[in-house]
Protein backbone atom coordinates (compact mmCIF):
# COMPACT_ATOMS: atom_id res chain seq x y z
CA UNK A 1 0.00 0.00 0.00
CA UNK A 2 1.48 3.33 -1.02
CA UNK A 3 1.72 6.23 1.35
CA UNK A 4 -1.00 8.82 1.46
CA UNK A 5 1.28 11.58 2.67
CA UNK A 6 4.78 11.56 3.98
CA UNK A 7 4.00 14.15 6.62
CA UNK A 8 2.52 11.97 9.31
CA UNK A 9 5.66 10.75 10.97
CA UNK A 10 5.47 9.95 14.68
CA UNK A 11 4.83 13.13 16.58
CA UNK A 12 8.01 14.83 17.68
CA UNK A 13 7.84 17.43 20.47
CA UNK A 14 8.41 20.14 17.85
CA UNK A 15 5.62 18.87 15.66
CA UNK A 16 3.28 18.72 18.64
CA UNK A 17 4.21 22.30 19.52
CA UNK A 18 3.56 23.52 15.97
CA UNK A 19 0.22 21.80 15.90
CA UNK A 20 -0.80 23.24 19.28
CA UNK A 21 0.10 26.76 18.10
CA UNK A 22 -1.98 26.35 14.96
CA UNK A 23 -4.82 24.92 17.04
CA UNK A 24 -4.84 27.90 19.41
CA UNK A 25 -4.78 30.32 16.47
CA UNK A 26 -7.66 28.45 14.86
CA UNK A 27 -9.69 28.42 18.08
CA UNK A 28 -9.14 32.17 18.63
CA UNK A 29 -10.07 32.98 15.04
CA UNK A 30 -13.26 30.93 15.30
CA UNK A 31 -14.13 32.39 18.70
CA UNK A 32 -13.90 35.92 17.29
CA UNK A 33 -16.33 35.24 14.45
CA UNK A 34 -19.44 36.73 16.15
CA UNK A 35 -17.56 40.06 16.48
CA UNK A 36 -16.59 40.26 12.82
CA UNK A 37 -19.98 40.44 11.16
CA UNK A 38 -19.48 37.17 9.28
CA UNK A 39 -22.79 35.35 8.88
CA UNK A 40 -22.69 32.96 11.89
CA UNK A 41 -25.03 30.43 10.32
CA UNK A 42 -22.52 29.82 7.55
CA UNK A 43 -19.65 29.28 10.00
CA UNK A 44 -21.73 26.98 12.22
CA UNK A 45 -22.69 24.88 9.23
CA UNK A 46 -19.06 24.74 8.12
CA UNK A 47 -18.00 23.74 11.66
CA UNK A 48 -20.39 20.77 11.66
CA UNK A 49 -19.04 19.60 8.32
CA UNK A 50 -15.49 20.25 9.48
CA UNK A 51 -16.04 17.92 12.43
CA UNK A 52 -17.59 15.34 10.12
CA UNK A 53 -14.62 15.59 7.76
CA UNK A 54 -12.16 15.29 10.66
CA UNK A 55 -13.93 12.14 11.84
CA UNK A 56 -13.87 10.76 8.29
CA UNK A 57 -10.19 11.67 8.01
CA UNK A 58 -9.40 9.69 11.16
CA UNK A 59 -10.46 6.58 9.27
CA UNK A 60 -9.04 7.27 5.83
CA UNK A 61 -6.03 9.44 6.60
CA UNK A 62 -4.72 7.41 9.50
CA UNK A 63 -6.31 4.01 9.00
CA UNK A 64 -6.18 3.97 5.18
CA UNK A 65 -9.86 2.95 5.04
CA UNK A 66 -11.86 4.98 2.53
CA UNK A 67 -15.46 4.98 3.72
CA UNK A 68 -17.90 6.04 1.05
CA UNK A 69 -20.86 5.98 3.41
CA UNK A 70 -20.08 8.43 6.19
CA UNK A 71 -23.31 10.29 5.52
CA UNK A 72 -25.13 7.41 7.22
CA UNK A 73 -23.69 8.42 10.60
CA UNK A 74 -24.41 12.10 10.02
CA UNK A 75 -27.98 11.35 8.96
CA UNK A 76 -28.74 8.69 11.55
CA UNK A 77 -27.57 10.85 14.44
CA UNK A 78 -29.44 13.79 12.95
CA UNK A 79 -32.72 11.87 12.66
CA UNK A 80 -32.43 10.37 16.15
CA UNK A 81 -31.54 13.68 17.79
CA UNK A 82 -34.31 15.45 15.92
CA UNK A 83 -36.83 12.80 16.93
CA UNK A 84 -35.71 12.92 20.57
CA UNK A 85 -35.95 16.71 20.68
CA UNK A 86 -39.21 17.12 18.85
CA UNK A 87 -41.30 14.06 19.68
CA UNK A 88 -39.89 13.04 23.05
CA UNK A 89 -39.24 16.64 24.09
CA UNK A 90 -35.83 15.90 25.54
CA UNK A 91 -33.47 18.76 26.45
CA UNK A 92 -30.63 19.50 23.96
CA UNK A 93 -27.86 17.70 25.85
CA UNK A 94 -29.89 14.47 25.99
CA UNK A 95 -30.95 14.92 22.38
CA UNK A 96 -27.30 15.01 21.35
CA UNK A 97 -26.62 11.97 23.52
CA UNK A 98 -29.40 10.00 21.79
CA UNK A 99 -28.00 10.88 18.37
CA UNK A 100 -24.42 10.01 19.29
CA UNK A 101 -25.54 6.73 20.89
CA UNK A 102 -27.42 5.84 17.70
CA UNK A 103 -24.35 6.60 15.59
CA UNK A 104 -22.26 4.49 17.96
CA UNK A 105 -24.63 1.54 17.61
CA UNK A 106 -24.74 1.92 13.85
CA UNK A 107 -20.95 2.12 13.58
CA UNK A 108 -20.56 -1.06 15.65
CA UNK A 109 -22.88 -2.95 13.30
CA UNK A 110 -21.64 -1.50 10.01
CA UNK A 111 -18.01 -1.67 11.13
CA UNK A 112 -18.36 -5.34 12.03
CA UNK A 113 -19.69 -6.02 8.52
CA UNK A 114 -17.45 -3.81 6.41
CA UNK A 115 -14.10 -4.40 8.16
CA UNK A 116 -14.27 -7.96 6.83
CA UNK A 117 -13.10 -6.82 3.43
CA UNK A 118 -10.09 -4.74 2.51
CA UNK A 119 -9.25 -1.86 0.24
CA UNK A 120 -11.61 -1.14 -2.57
CA UNK A 121 -14.24 -3.60 -1.34
CA UNK A 122 -14.44 -1.70 1.95
CA UNK A 123 -15.43 1.47 0.08
CA UNK A 124 -18.09 -0.33 -1.93
CA UNK A 125 -19.52 -2.02 1.16
CA UNK A 126 -19.80 1.21 3.15
CA UNK A 127 -21.46 2.88 0.15
CA UNK A 128 -23.93 0.01 -0.21
CA UNK A 129 -24.71 0.02 3.53
CA UNK A 130 -25.41 3.74 3.49
CA UNK A 131 -27.70 3.26 0.48
CA UNK A 132 -29.51 0.52 2.42
CA UNK A 133 -30.06 2.95 5.28
CA UNK A 134 -31.18 5.63 2.82
CA UNK A 135 -33.97 3.38 1.59
CA UNK A 136 -34.92 2.41 5.16
CA UNK A 137 -35.17 6.09 6.14
CA UNK A 138 -37.12 6.80 2.98
CA UNK A 139 -39.80 4.34 4.11
CA UNK A 140 -39.63 4.56 7.91
CA UNK A 141 -42.53 6.57 9.36
CA UNK A 142 -40.55 8.51 11.99
CA UNK A 143 -38.33 10.23 9.39
CA UNK A 144 -41.35 11.60 7.48
CA UNK A 145 -39.86 10.49 4.15
CA UNK A 146 -39.24 13.26 1.65
CA UNK A 147 -40.36 16.01 4.06
CA UNK A 148 -37.88 15.14 6.80
CA UNK A 149 -38.25 16.24 10.40
CA UNK A 150 -38.78 19.98 10.44
CA UNK A 151 -39.19 22.77 12.97
CA UNK A 152 -37.03 21.19 15.62
CA UNK A 153 -37.08 23.10 18.93
CA UNK A 154 -33.61 24.26 19.95
CA UNK A 155 -34.40 24.51 23.65
CA UNK A 156 -32.17 25.42 26.60
CA UNK A 157 -28.97 23.44 27.00
CA UNK A 158 -28.36 22.36 30.63
CA UNK A 159 -31.43 24.44 31.37
CA UNK A 160 -29.57 27.77 31.03
CA UNK A 161 -28.06 28.20 27.53
CA UNK A 162 -30.76 29.48 25.20
CA UNK A 163 -29.89 27.89 21.86
CA UNK A 164 -32.39 29.99 19.92
CA UNK A 165 -29.99 32.88 20.50
CA UNK A 166 -27.60 32.78 17.52
CA UNK A 167 -24.52 33.81 19.50
CA UNK A 168 -25.10 31.27 22.27
CA UNK A 169 -25.74 28.58 19.70
CA UNK A 170 -22.56 29.57 17.88
CA UNK A 171 -20.40 29.11 20.96
CA UNK A 172 -22.06 25.82 21.85
CA UNK A 173 -21.41 24.50 18.33
CA UNK A 174 -17.86 25.84 18.45
CA UNK A 175 -17.26 24.16 21.82
CA UNK A 176 -18.61 20.89 20.43
CA UNK A 177 -16.39 21.18 17.38
CA UNK A 178 -13.26 21.98 19.39
CA UNK A 179 -13.93 19.13 21.82
CA UNK A 180 -14.37 16.68 18.96
CA UNK A 181 -11.30 18.03 17.19
CA UNK A 182 -9.13 17.73 20.32
CA UNK A 183 -10.34 14.18 20.87
CA UNK A 184 -9.36 13.24 17.31
CA UNK A 185 -6.02 15.03 17.76
CA UNK A 186 -5.44 13.03 20.94
CA UNK A 187 -6.38 9.74 19.25
CA UNK A 188 -4.02 10.37 16.35
CA UNK A 189 -1.09 11.04 18.67
CA UNK A 190 -1.82 8.17 21.03
CA UNK A 191 -0.13 4.77 20.84
CA UNK A 192 -3.38 3.55 19.26
CA UNK A 193 -3.00 6.16 16.52
CA UNK A 194 0.60 5.12 15.88
CA UNK A 195 -0.46 1.49 15.43
CA UNK A 196 -3.22 2.64 13.09
CA UNK A 197 -0.68 4.49 10.93
CA UNK A 198 1.54 1.42 10.85
CA UNK A 199 -1.41 -0.65 9.63
CA UNK A 200 -2.03 1.91 6.90
CA UNK A 201 1.61 1.76 5.83
CA UNK A 202 2.02 -2.00 5.94
CA UNK A 203 -0.67 -4.19 7.39
CA UNK A 204 1.23 -7.47 6.93
CA UNK A 205 4.14 -6.13 8.96
CA UNK A 206 1.84 -4.87 11.69
CA UNK A 207 0.29 -8.34 11.89
CA UNK A 208 3.70 -9.97 12.06
CA UNK A 209 4.57 -7.66 14.95
CA UNK A 210 1.66 -9.16 16.83
CA UNK A 211 -1.02 -6.50 16.40
CA UNK A 212 -4.56 -7.69 15.82
CA UNK A 213 -5.07 -5.25 12.99
CA UNK A 214 -8.77 -6.06 12.56
CA UNK A 215 -9.48 -4.92 16.10
CA UNK A 216 -7.60 -1.68 15.57
CA UNK A 217 -9.48 -0.96 12.36
CA UNK A 218 -12.78 -1.85 14.00
CA UNK A 219 -12.12 0.54 16.88
CA UNK A 220 -11.05 3.30 14.46
CA UNK A 221 -14.27 2.75 12.53
CA UNK A 222 -16.39 3.04 15.67
CA UNK A 223 -14.59 6.19 16.84
CA UNK A 224 -14.92 7.75 13.42
CA UNK A 225 -18.59 6.84 13.04
CA UNK A 226 -19.52 8.03 16.51
CA UNK A 227 -17.77 11.37 16.05
CA UNK A 228 -19.42 11.78 12.65
CA UNK A 229 -22.70 11.21 14.50
CA UNK A 230 -21.80 13.95 16.98
CA UNK A 231 -21.39 16.31 14.02
CA UNK A 232 -24.82 15.20 12.77
CA UNK A 233 -26.45 15.93 16.15
CA UNK A 234 -24.88 19.40 16.32
CA UNK A 235 -26.06 20.12 12.80
CA UNK A 236 -29.68 19.52 13.88
CA UNK A 237 -29.54 22.61 16.12
CA UNK A 238 -28.08 24.72 13.32
CA UNK A 239 -30.31 23.63 10.46
CA UNK A 240 -33.37 22.86 12.66
CA UNK A 241 -34.26 20.00 10.37
CA UNK A 242 -33.16 16.48 9.53
CA UNK A 243 -33.72 15.30 5.98
CA UNK A 244 -32.83 12.65 3.45
CA UNK A 245 -30.07 14.79 1.92
CA UNK A 246 -27.96 14.06 5.00
CA UNK A 247 -28.07 10.31 4.32
CA UNK A 248 -27.68 10.47 0.55
CA UNK A 249 -24.54 9.16 -1.16
CA UNK A 250 -23.81 12.62 -2.55
CA UNK A 251 -23.29 13.79 1.04
CA UNK A 252 -20.76 10.99 1.60
CA UNK A 253 -19.06 12.18 -1.57
CA UNK A 254 -18.93 15.76 -0.28
CA UNK A 255 -17.21 14.67 2.92
CA UNK A 256 -14.62 12.85 0.85
CA UNK A 257 -14.16 15.96 -1.28
CA UNK A 258 -13.68 18.24 1.74
CA UNK A 259 -11.02 15.98 3.18
CA UNK A 260 -9.29 15.54 -0.17
CA UNK A 261 -9.17 19.30 -0.81
CA UNK A 262 -7.81 20.03 2.66
CA UNK A 263 -5.40 17.12 2.69
CA UNK A 264 -5.90 13.44 3.50
CA UNK A 265 -4.08 12.46 6.65
CA UNK A 266 -3.43 16.02 7.83
CA UNK A 267 -4.83 17.29 11.10
CA UNK A 268 -6.14 20.67 9.96
CA UNK A 269 -6.81 19.79 6.33
CA UNK A 270 -10.42 18.60 6.75
CA UNK A 271 -11.32 21.85 8.55
CA UNK A 272 -9.92 23.98 5.72
CA UNK A 273 -11.52 21.70 3.14
CA UNK A 274 -14.94 21.93 4.80
CA UNK A 275 -14.82 25.75 4.84
CA UNK A 276 -13.69 25.86 1.19
CA UNK A 277 -16.44 23.51 -0.04
CA UNK A 278 -19.24 25.05 2.05
CA UNK A 279 -18.20 28.55 0.94
CA UNK A 280 -18.14 27.39 -2.65
CA UNK A 281 -21.66 25.95 -2.35
CA UNK A 282 -22.83 29.19 -0.77
CA UNK A 283 -21.47 31.38 -3.54
CA UNK A 284 -22.43 29.11 -6.40
CA UNK A 285 -25.91 28.29 -5.08
CA UNK A 286 -27.53 30.09 -8.03
CA UNK A 287 -25.79 28.02 -10.64
CA UNK A 288 -27.87 24.86 -10.17
CA UNK A 289 -26.24 21.64 -11.20
CA UNK A 290 -23.02 23.35 -12.25
CA UNK A 291 -22.04 23.05 -8.57
CA UNK A 292 -21.97 19.27 -9.07
CA UNK A 293 -19.86 19.69 -12.19
CA UNK A 294 -17.41 21.95 -10.34
CA UNK A 295 -17.21 19.50 -7.43
CA UNK A 296 -16.44 16.73 -9.90
CA UNK A 297 -13.78 18.86 -11.54
CA UNK A 298 -12.20 19.56 -8.14
CA UNK A 299 -12.08 15.81 -7.47
CA UNK A 300 -10.34 15.23 -10.80
CA UNK A 301 -7.87 18.09 -10.36
CA UNK A 302 -7.06 17.12 -6.76
CA UNK A 303 -6.43 13.48 -7.63
CA UNK A 304 -4.34 14.24 -10.70
CA UNK A 305 -2.23 17.17 -9.54
CA UNK A 306 -2.88 18.06 -5.93
CA UNK A 307 -3.02 14.84 -3.93
CA UNK A 308 -1.62 16.38 -0.75
CA UNK A 309 -4.40 18.95 -0.52
CA UNK A 310 -4.05 22.56 0.72
CA UNK A 311 -2.70 21.81 4.18
CA UNK A 312 -0.67 18.86 2.95
CA UNK A 313 1.12 21.09 0.42
CA UNK A 314 1.82 23.76 3.05
CA UNK A 315 3.07 21.17 5.52
CA UNK A 316 5.25 19.61 2.84
CA UNK A 317 6.69 22.99 1.84
CA UNK A 318 7.62 23.92 5.39
CA UNK A 319 8.52 20.31 6.22
CA UNK A 320 6.19 20.48 9.19
CA UNK A 321 3.45 18.20 10.38
CA UNK A 322 0.08 19.96 10.38
Amino acid sequence: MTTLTDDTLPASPRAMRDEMIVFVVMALLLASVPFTGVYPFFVMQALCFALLACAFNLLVGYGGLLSFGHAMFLGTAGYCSAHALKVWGLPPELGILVGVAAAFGLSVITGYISIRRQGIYFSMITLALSQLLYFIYLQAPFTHGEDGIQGIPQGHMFGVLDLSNATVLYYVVLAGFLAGFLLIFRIINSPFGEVLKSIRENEQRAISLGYRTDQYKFLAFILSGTLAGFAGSLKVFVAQNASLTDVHWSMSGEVVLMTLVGGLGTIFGPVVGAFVIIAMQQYLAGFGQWVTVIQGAIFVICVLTFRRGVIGEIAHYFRRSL
Partner: protein
Amino acid sequence: MQALYAQLLVGLINGSFYALLSLGLAVIFGMLNIINFAHGALYMMGAFVAYFLLNLGGINYWWALLLAPIIVGIFGMILERTMLQWLTGLDHLYGLLLTFGIALIVQGVFQNYFGSSGLPYAIPDQLKGGMNLGFMFLPVYRGWVVVFSLVVCLATWFLIEKTQLGAYLRAATENPTLVRAFGINVPRMITLTYGLGVGLAALAGVLSAPINQVRPLMGADLIIVVFAVVVIGGMGSIMGSIITGFALGVIEGLTKYFYPEASNTVVFVLMVLVLLVKPTGLTGRAA
Protein backbone atom coordinates in the same frame (compact mmCIF):
# COMPACT_ATOMS: atom_id res chain seq x y z
CA MET B 1 -49.37 -16.13 -11.06
CA GLN B 2 -49.35 -13.66 -13.97
CA ALA B 3 -47.96 -11.00 -11.65
CA LEU B 4 -45.26 -13.33 -10.38
CA TYR B 5 -44.06 -14.11 -13.89
CA ALA B 6 -44.15 -10.42 -14.77
CA GLN B 7 -41.96 -9.57 -11.78
CA LEU B 8 -39.64 -12.44 -12.62
CA LEU B 9 -39.23 -10.96 -16.09
CA VAL B 10 -38.50 -7.50 -14.65
CA GLY B 11 -36.00 -9.22 -12.37
CA LEU B 12 -34.32 -10.92 -15.31
CA ILE B 13 -34.07 -7.60 -17.14
CA ASN B 14 -32.53 -5.84 -14.15
CA GLY B 15 -30.32 -8.89 -13.78
CA SER B 16 -29.08 -8.42 -17.36
CA PHE B 17 -28.08 -4.84 -16.54
CA TYR B 18 -26.37 -5.95 -13.32
CA ALA B 19 -24.53 -8.65 -15.25
CA LEU B 20 -23.41 -6.33 -18.07
CA LEU B 21 -22.28 -3.65 -15.64
CA SER B 22 -20.56 -5.87 -13.09
CA LEU B 23 -18.86 -7.73 -15.92
CA GLY B 24 -17.40 -4.44 -17.17
CA LEU B 25 -16.36 -3.45 -13.65
CA ALA B 26 -14.61 -6.80 -13.16
CA VAL B 27 -12.75 -6.61 -16.48
CA ILE B 28 -11.63 -3.04 -15.79
CA PHE B 29 -10.60 -3.85 -12.23
CA GLY B 30 -8.55 -6.79 -13.46
CA MET B 31 -6.46 -4.69 -15.83
CA LEU B 32 -6.45 -1.21 -14.31
CA ASN B 33 -6.84 -1.98 -10.61
CA ILE B 34 -9.50 0.71 -10.55
CA ILE B 35 -13.10 0.51 -9.46
CA ASN B 36 -14.81 2.51 -12.14
CA PHE B 37 -17.26 4.75 -10.28
CA ALA B 38 -18.04 6.44 -13.61
CA HIS B 39 -19.62 3.22 -14.84
CA GLY B 40 -23.16 4.38 -14.03
CA ALA B 41 -22.59 7.73 -15.72
CA LEU B 42 -21.25 5.99 -18.84
CA TYR B 43 -24.27 3.66 -18.85
CA MET B 44 -26.41 6.79 -18.85
CA MET B 45 -24.31 8.24 -21.69
CA GLY B 46 -25.00 5.10 -23.73
CA ALA B 47 -28.74 5.73 -23.44
CA PHE B 48 -28.32 9.42 -24.29
CA VAL B 49 -26.17 8.68 -27.33
CA ALA B 50 -28.91 6.36 -28.59
CA TYR B 51 -31.43 9.15 -27.97
CA PHE B 52 -29.32 11.71 -29.85
CA LEU B 53 -28.69 9.32 -32.73
CA LEU B 54 -32.42 8.79 -33.16
CA ASN B 55 -33.63 12.34 -32.66
CA LEU B 56 -30.80 14.33 -34.22
CA GLY B 57 -29.43 11.92 -36.79
CA GLY B 58 -32.43 9.76 -37.54
CA ILE B 59 -30.29 6.70 -36.85
CA ASN B 60 -32.41 3.82 -35.62
CA TYR B 61 -32.16 1.53 -32.58
CA TRP B 62 -30.22 -1.22 -34.35
CA TRP B 63 -27.42 1.10 -35.41
CA ALA B 64 -27.47 2.71 -31.95
CA LEU B 65 -26.90 -0.73 -30.46
CA LEU B 66 -23.63 -0.84 -32.39
CA LEU B 67 -22.64 2.84 -32.49
CA ALA B 68 -23.43 3.96 -28.91
CA PRO B 69 -21.03 1.46 -27.28
CA ILE B 70 -18.33 2.45 -29.78
CA ILE B 71 -18.81 6.19 -29.22
CA VAL B 72 -18.92 5.87 -25.42
CA GLY B 73 -16.06 3.37 -25.58
CA ILE B 74 -13.91 5.92 -27.44
CA PHE B 75 -14.88 8.55 -24.85
CA GLY B 76 -13.78 6.07 -22.17
CA MET B 77 -10.49 5.42 -23.90
CA ILE B 78 -9.83 9.16 -24.03
CA LEU B 79 -10.51 9.32 -20.28
CA GLU B 80 -8.10 6.45 -19.72
CA ARG B 81 -5.35 8.04 -21.83
CA THR B 82 -5.72 11.53 -20.39
CA MET B 83 -6.43 10.76 -16.73
CA LEU B 84 -6.64 7.20 -15.45
CA GLN B 85 -3.24 6.12 -16.77
CA TRP B 86 -1.50 8.57 -14.43
CA LEU B 87 -2.79 6.68 -11.41
CA THR B 88 -0.71 3.57 -12.03
CA GLY B 89 1.09 2.63 -8.85
CA LEU B 90 -0.98 4.88 -6.58
CA ASP B 91 -3.30 3.70 -3.84
CA HIS B 92 -6.58 2.12 -5.02
CA LEU B 93 -8.59 4.88 -3.43
CA TYR B 94 -7.39 7.53 -5.89
CA GLY B 95 -8.87 5.58 -8.81
CA LEU B 96 -12.21 5.51 -7.02
CA LEU B 97 -12.05 9.24 -6.25
CA LEU B 98 -11.04 10.21 -9.78
CA THR B 99 -13.78 8.18 -11.43
CA PHE B 100 -16.29 9.50 -8.85
CA GLY B 101 -15.30 13.01 -9.93
CA ILE B 102 -15.75 12.07 -13.59
CA ALA B 103 -19.20 10.66 -12.77
CA LEU B 104 -20.20 13.92 -11.04
CA ILE B 105 -19.05 15.99 -14.02
CA VAL B 106 -20.84 13.85 -16.62
CA GLN B 107 -24.07 13.58 -14.62
CA GLY B 108 -24.00 17.27 -13.70
CA VAL B 109 -23.59 18.38 -17.33
CA PHE B 110 -26.48 16.20 -18.48
CA GLN B 111 -28.67 17.37 -15.58
CA ASN B 112 -28.05 20.97 -16.58
CA TYR B 113 -29.36 20.45 -20.06
CA PHE B 114 -32.01 17.79 -19.49
CA GLY B 115 -33.16 18.30 -15.90
CA SER B 116 -34.05 15.22 -13.92
CA SER B 117 -37.06 14.03 -15.84
CA GLY B 118 -37.02 11.19 -18.34
CA LEU B 119 -36.96 11.41 -22.13
CA PRO B 120 -38.96 8.78 -24.00
CA TYR B 121 -37.27 6.38 -26.40
CA ALA B 122 -39.60 4.33 -28.57
CA ILE B 123 -39.33 0.58 -28.87
CA PRO B 124 -38.18 -0.30 -32.43
CA ASP B 125 -40.99 -1.53 -34.70
CA GLN B 126 -39.56 -5.03 -35.08
CA LEU B 127 -39.73 -5.61 -31.30
CA LYS B 128 -43.12 -4.11 -30.57
CA GLY B 129 -46.03 -6.15 -29.33
CA GLY B 130 -46.01 -9.31 -27.32
CA MET B 131 -46.29 -13.06 -27.37
CA ASN B 132 -48.68 -15.25 -25.46
CA LEU B 133 -46.64 -18.03 -23.92
CA GLY B 134 -49.66 -19.77 -22.44
CA PHE B 135 -48.69 -19.07 -18.83
CA MET B 136 -47.88 -15.40 -19.36
CA PHE B 137 -47.86 -12.53 -21.82
CA LEU B 138 -44.30 -11.71 -22.89
CA PRO B 139 -43.58 -8.25 -24.33
CA VAL B 140 -41.17 -8.99 -27.19
CA TYR B 141 -38.78 -6.17 -26.35
CA ARG B 142 -38.29 -7.39 -22.79
CA GLY B 143 -37.58 -10.91 -23.94
CA TRP B 144 -35.11 -9.51 -26.47
CA VAL B 145 -33.21 -7.58 -23.77
CA VAL B 146 -32.73 -10.71 -21.67
CA VAL B 147 -31.65 -12.93 -24.55
CA PHE B 148 -29.39 -10.34 -26.15
CA SER B 149 -27.68 -9.45 -22.83
CA LEU B 150 -27.07 -13.11 -22.16
CA VAL B 151 -25.49 -13.53 -25.59
CA VAL B 152 -23.26 -10.47 -25.09
CA CYS B 153 -22.21 -11.69 -21.62
CA LEU B 154 -21.33 -15.13 -22.93
CA ALA B 155 -19.48 -13.62 -25.90
CA THR B 156 -17.42 -11.52 -23.49
CA TRP B 157 -16.73 -14.57 -21.38
CA PHE B 158 -15.62 -16.44 -24.54
CA LEU B 159 -13.40 -13.55 -25.63
CA ILE B 160 -11.60 -13.40 -22.31
CA GLU B 161 -11.42 -17.07 -21.37
CA LYS B 162 -11.06 -18.83 -24.72
CA THR B 163 -9.27 -16.61 -27.27
CA GLN B 164 -5.63 -15.66 -27.82
CA LEU B 165 -6.38 -12.00 -27.07
CA GLY B 166 -8.11 -13.04 -23.84
CA ALA B 167 -5.08 -15.09 -22.88
CA TYR B 168 -2.84 -12.02 -23.27
CA LEU B 169 -5.33 -10.07 -21.24
CA ARG B 170 -5.41 -12.56 -18.39
CA ALA B 171 -1.63 -12.83 -18.46
CA ALA B 172 -1.29 -9.04 -18.32
CA THR B 173 -3.65 -9.01 -15.33
CA GLU B 174 -1.38 -11.43 -13.49
CA ASN B 175 1.98 -9.95 -14.43
CA PRO B 176 2.06 -6.91 -16.73
CA THR B 177 5.85 -6.53 -16.65
CA LEU B 178 6.48 -10.05 -17.86
CA VAL B 179 3.87 -9.75 -20.62
CA ARG B 180 5.52 -6.52 -21.78
CA ALA B 181 8.84 -8.33 -21.93
CA PHE B 182 7.27 -10.67 -24.51
CA GLY B 183 6.72 -7.67 -26.77
CA ILE B 184 3.02 -7.12 -26.12
CA ASN B 185 1.87 -3.52 -25.84
CA VAL B 186 0.29 -3.68 -22.40
CA PRO B 187 -0.65 0.03 -22.07
CA ARG B 188 -2.61 -0.25 -25.32
CA MET B 189 -4.34 -3.37 -24.01
CA ILE B 190 -5.25 -1.49 -20.84
CA THR B 191 -6.81 1.30 -22.90
CA LEU B 192 -8.75 -1.19 -25.03
CA THR B 193 -9.90 -3.05 -21.91
CA TYR B 194 -11.27 0.14 -20.42
CA GLY B 195 -12.99 0.85 -23.74
CA LEU B 196 -14.50 -2.64 -23.71
CA GLY B 197 -15.78 -2.38 -20.14
CA VAL B 198 -17.23 1.06 -20.77
CA GLY B 199 -18.74 -0.13 -24.06
CA LEU B 200 -20.59 -2.88 -22.19
CA ALA B 201 -22.02 -0.27 -19.82
CA ALA B 202 -23.12 1.87 -22.79
CA LEU B 203 -24.73 -1.16 -24.42
CA ALA B 204 -26.73 -1.77 -21.25
CA GLY B 205 -27.75 1.89 -21.41
CA VAL B 206 -29.08 1.53 -24.96
CA LEU B 207 -30.97 -1.63 -24.01
CA SER B 208 -32.59 0.08 -21.04
CA ALA B 209 -33.54 3.29 -22.90
CA PRO B 210 -36.94 2.03 -24.18
CA ILE B 211 -37.79 0.43 -20.82
CA ASN B 212 -36.62 2.93 -18.21
CA GLN B 213 -36.59 6.18 -20.23
CA VAL B 214 -33.44 8.26 -20.69
CA ARG B 215 -32.58 10.18 -17.51
CA PRO B 216 -29.34 11.93 -16.41
CA LEU B 217 -29.39 10.10 -13.06
CA MET B 218 -30.44 6.69 -14.37
CA GLY B 219 -26.98 5.28 -13.63
CA ALA B 220 -26.33 6.99 -10.28
CA ASP B 221 -28.38 4.70 -8.06
CA LEU B 222 -27.88 1.67 -10.28
CA ILE B 223 -24.10 1.75 -9.86
CA ILE B 224 -24.44 1.42 -6.07
CA VAL B 225 -26.57 -1.72 -6.48
CA VAL B 226 -23.99 -3.02 -8.95
CA PHE B 227 -21.27 -2.40 -6.35
CA ALA B 228 -23.22 -4.58 -3.93
CA VAL B 229 -23.53 -7.22 -6.67
CA VAL B 230 -19.76 -7.06 -7.16
CA VAL B 231 -19.15 -7.42 -3.42
CA ILE B 232 -21.44 -10.46 -3.35
CA GLY B 233 -19.97 -12.13 -6.42
CA GLY B 234 -16.38 -11.02 -6.16
CA MET B 235 -14.43 -9.78 -9.15
CA GLY B 236 -12.24 -12.83 -9.61
CA SER B 237 -14.32 -14.65 -12.17
CA ILE B 238 -16.10 -13.50 -15.34
CA MET B 239 -18.70 -16.25 -15.26
CA GLY B 240 -19.21 -15.53 -11.55
CA SER B 241 -20.13 -11.91 -12.34
CA ILE B 242 -22.63 -12.99 -15.00
CA ILE B 243 -24.35 -15.59 -12.84
CA THR B 244 -24.44 -13.35 -9.75
CA GLY B 245 -25.86 -10.47 -11.79
CA PHE B 246 -28.74 -12.49 -13.23
CA ALA B 247 -29.40 -14.34 -9.96
CA LEU B 248 -29.65 -11.13 -7.94
CA GLY B 249 -31.97 -9.61 -10.52
CA VAL B 250 -34.27 -12.61 -10.19
CA ILE B 251 -34.18 -12.47 -6.39
CA GLU B 252 -35.03 -8.78 -6.55
CA GLY B 253 -37.94 -9.58 -8.86
CA LEU B 254 -39.24 -12.26 -6.50
CA THR B 255 -38.97 -9.81 -3.60
CA LYS B 256 -41.06 -7.30 -5.55
CA TYR B 257 -43.78 -9.91 -5.74
CA PHE B 258 -43.67 -11.36 -2.23
CA TYR B 259 -42.57 -8.37 -0.15
CA PRO B 260 -42.52 -5.17 -2.25
CA GLU B 261 -41.39 -2.94 0.64
CA ALA B 262 -37.98 -4.61 0.60
CA SER B 263 -37.48 -4.67 -3.17
CA ASN B 264 -34.95 -1.85 -3.32
CA THR B 265 -33.01 -3.03 -0.27
CA VAL B 266 -32.90 -6.79 -0.82
CA VAL B 267 -29.60 -6.76 -2.74
CA PHE B 268 -27.93 -4.80 0.07
CA VAL B 269 -29.35 -7.10 2.72
CA LEU B 270 -28.05 -10.10 0.77
CA MET B 271 -24.66 -8.42 0.62
CA VAL B 272 -24.64 -8.10 4.40
CA LEU B 273 -25.59 -11.77 4.80
CA VAL B 274 -22.91 -12.91 2.38
CA LEU B 275 -20.29 -10.80 4.18
CA LEU B 276 -21.28 -12.32 7.51
CA VAL B 277 -21.25 -15.91 6.26
CA LYS B 278 -18.53 -15.86 3.61
CA PRO B 279 -16.51 -12.63 3.78
CA THR B 280 -14.56 -13.30 0.57
CA GLY B 281 -17.69 -13.24 -1.58
CA LEU B 282 -19.26 -16.15 -3.40
CA THR B 283 -16.72 -16.58 -6.18
CA GLY B 284 -14.06 -14.02 -5.37
CA ARG B 285 -10.55 -14.50 -4.20
CA ALA B 286 -9.58 -12.86 -0.92
CA ALA B 287 -8.81 -9.21 -1.54
